[in-house]
């Protein structure tokens, strides 16, 4: 399985996919969403206490 994935150059494919996801996420405003999420989840955790 691993050899087969190596043969089809899976690592390069995965690298490209993750890079595209990261850049697309950033272009669509993902940074801001995670920023907002960070605040939400912080407040939610406080609420759990």
């Amino acid at each position: 399985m691993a050899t087969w994935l190596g043969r089809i150059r899976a690592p390069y494919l995965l690298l490209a996919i993750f890079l595209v996801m990261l850049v697309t996420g950033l272009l669509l405003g993902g940074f801001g969403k995670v920023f907002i999420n960070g605040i939400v989840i912080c407040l939610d955790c406080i609420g759990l206490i």
Partner: protein
Amino acid sequence: MVARRWSQVLGTLVANPWFAYFGTRTIYQGKAKGLCFPGFNCYACPLALFSCPIGALQQSMTLISPRFRTASAGQAVVTAVKRTASYPVSALLYVVGFIGLVGILTGRLVCGWICPFGFLQDLLYKIPTPKLPLPQWMRFGKYFALVVVAMLIPYITGVHWYSRLCPAGSLEGAVPLELLPPKTPLPDVGWFFWLKIAILVVFLAWMVVTKRPFCRAACALGGAYAALTPFSFYRMRVDSAKCTSCGSCKASCPVDINIYENANSPECVRCLTCKKECPNGAVSSGFGRPYSSTIFERGSGPPA
């Protein structure tokens, strides 16, 4: 390894440098929280500057969930998130891209060198007590934690259950906030708080007797990195001509693996202790083209 210890201390400090909290009693809510820290560090920690990738992943799953809600975050915040979530999938793309990129480039190098929670486990295991091995089947727990608890359940229920039960969240977020409350008044301690504490105590006790039990059995971030480790660009290599299968590597390994059986095992946290401990200098590591080495890497075993 002194270098690794310093790296772990530095990783912990980089993830948690907001000492202003002691004066302001306000959790950091600046732009840096839009960045994920590659290690496992609760972003509800009063000192945290960055987001936890798994917390962010869960919250992203809840954003795309048909049952989106933030149960106790307050209506104003929920409304604010809904207003800004014009592209609800963008956070998910960003977080998955981030975790994936770290994983495919370095595998679990982060776990061994900068993760604050991994650091804690390394330290607790040094307490001299009788030690217990981790049952092999438990290693699948981290994949379950990632796929089911951190992704599927938040999508289905709209609630980030992994964070709610996370012992790192209890240790770094809930307990410090209870001891040093922020300016914003906190609700009274309820039964859920004590459930979180019970989970934390179980894991802390387990960390004393077993090598890195949380990393190996329950860490969703470790699960993501582990899945990518066999394909990562950072490679471990064992020279079959030098390896004598003496077992020095396993004896010193913080996750109990035989590196000569599978140099790029998903369990390996790339702490590189085996590289230092190998009496024959058979273990090496570094960035390179995956699958390019002429030295055996996966499953081929040492020479007879």
